[in-house]
């Protein structure tokens, strides 16, 4: 009797162990294809890119690489185009993300109201977010054409100066900010709205009983509870804006007079138009380091605060 139970217990443990073992392997097997793809096409090139930053290499003859150590990073310090691009990237990212967040928050506040037809508004507000970037760029370039672009036609009728804003050294940069804002506000709005909707109604009622008005309730009930989604949205968009290439490249190409040059376009041009792979890679590494530091510090601050 006793031996029988003992044996069956051993058998059962054995079976459980085998099941657990095979489950672990099945878990690995299922995630393997995605992991291989990412490792081969993202992780490996990133590591090679970091390595390349310490070499001199030309796109014309990429297999001939000479080790130059930290030379590229020294070159950067005296490269005025790089410094301008770095400053403009940081400026673009901070200005665009700030405006996006506040506009997204305002849109979220109205989109969460349950007025008739609101779900229709929720959907169509996302159109600018799904458009191809090249379509957005063509649209904005059309809007500000002199003579027939609708914005300039209206400006002309109001007696305001008309100009092809993308070609104006002072206005091209604000136009880039505007496109970043236009494209991404809906994403913030929908995410923040969903986060607001998940706050239990009872918390608002409790706050109201304590005498809190709508503004106070927004500040003390809504804002703290959407801080997690806010953080995710801000981190995502800082990364997106900082690394974004096509919006600038397709609309101004970095001009006029380099006034809209950002790191992504400068790295691309250095690699694929002047063929200096090593120098381009070293600037890419700087971008990577800045984003790593930003994300780590921001997430830490958010966790402790």
């Amino acid at each position, binding site marked *: 009797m006793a031996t029988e139970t003992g044996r069956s217990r051993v058998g059962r443990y054995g079976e459980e162990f085998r099941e657990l073992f095979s489950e672990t392997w099945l878990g690995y097997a299922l995630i393997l294809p995605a992991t291989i793809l990412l490792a081969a096409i993202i992780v490996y090139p990133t590591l090679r890119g970091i390595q390349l930053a310490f070499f001199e290499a030309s796109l014309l003859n990429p297999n001939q690489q000479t080790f130059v150590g930290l030379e590229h990073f020294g070159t950067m310090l005296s490269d005025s185009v790089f410094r301008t691009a770095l400053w403009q990237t940081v400026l673009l990212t901070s200005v665009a993300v700030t405006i996006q967040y506040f506009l997204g928050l305002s849109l979220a506040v109205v989109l969460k109201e349950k007025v008739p037809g609101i779900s229709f508004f929720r959907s169509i507000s996302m159109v600018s977010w799904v458009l191809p970037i090249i379509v957005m760029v063509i649209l904005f370039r*059309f809007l500000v054409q002199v003579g027939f672009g609708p914005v300039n*036609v209206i400006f002309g009728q109001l007696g305001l100066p008309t100009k092809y804003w993308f070609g104006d050294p002072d206005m091209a940069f604000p136009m880039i900010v505007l496109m970043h804002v236009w494209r991404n506000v809906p994403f913030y709005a929908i995410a923040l709205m969903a986060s607001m909707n998940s706050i239990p109604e009872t918390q608002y009622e409790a706050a109201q009983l304590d005498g809190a008005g709508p503004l106070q309730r927004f500040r003390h009930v809504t804002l703290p509870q959407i801080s997690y989604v806010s953080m995710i949205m801000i981190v995502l968009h800082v990364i997106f804006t900082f690394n974004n290439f096509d919006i600038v490249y397709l609309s101004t190409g970095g001009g006029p007079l380099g006034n809209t040059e950002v790191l992504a376009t400068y790295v691309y041009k250095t690699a694929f138009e002047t063929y200096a792979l090593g120098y381009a890679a070293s600037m890419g590494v700087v971008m990577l380091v800045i984003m790593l530091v930003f994300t780590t510090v921001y997430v830490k601050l958010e966790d402790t605060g």
Partner: protein
Amino acid sequence: MATETDAATRSGTGMSLSDRVDAWLDEDMSVRRAIAVYAVLGVFMSFLLVPVIYMVLVTFTGREFLYSSQLIPALSDLTIENYEQVLSRGAFQSYFVNSVVIASSTTALTLTVGTFAGYSLSRFDYPGHDSLLVAFLGTQMLPYVLILIPFFLLMFTLNLINTHIGIVIAHSVIATPLATWLLKGYFDDIPESLDEAAKMDGCSQLDILVRVILPLSIPGIAVAGFYTFTVSWNDFLLVSVLSQTSATRTLPLGLQLFQSQNQVAWHLVLTAAAVTMAPVILLFALVQKWVVEGLGSGGMKGV
């Protein structure tokens, strides 16, 4: 507290601005509130939507109207001539076909690997589980322009430059991390008791995925599929490096060449742009309800 507020309201003095706004909003004025909501919505929509609608309207007018300083077309200005011209261009047709082939293949490949990976992350526990998830999402932080240089060399070595398959692989890799995360979120929402029940009935793990999990995650698959399709359809950067001839050129690249070659043919450039955005807009119309919901529930949950 209540008496304080009452006193303040009655006297009307000594109130801070925010208290006064609160007092005004607190009154039950649903009609006024609704009007305010619609007014704000109107401002946002005219900023976000009117430009797009206006662009589409202009593509249905002739060249003369477009280059005039008129803003509103008369009924007699309307024509589909631009569309006839753009759609009959051989180059445009072939870019369209390339875009469809590449975006659909990318979606199929990404959904397959993403479903397996998402299922693995949702239902299995093994050493390295959490770090794999973080690593997947971490790849989204890398600057593509840095990856692009060695990536180009790698594709060159593999003879995948200027091939459809090379572009499909590149697009799939870009879309896989977020698609996996989205799918994992939806799978997490399906109670594990259903898995247990299916296991009792003799289903294997893969049966559970195919017969229990997938049918219940149609919205998640639709959202992840839409996201992937859009990433591939909209991509310019990767295609600009991987595509060298018109045989692999997709619409965004074709459109960029078109707008620089035809500086003056705005009526055709705008029409080509409208055709380029049409498929993603149509797909979005199909899945919009799930996208709006999904960003709230499945997608935005903690890692």
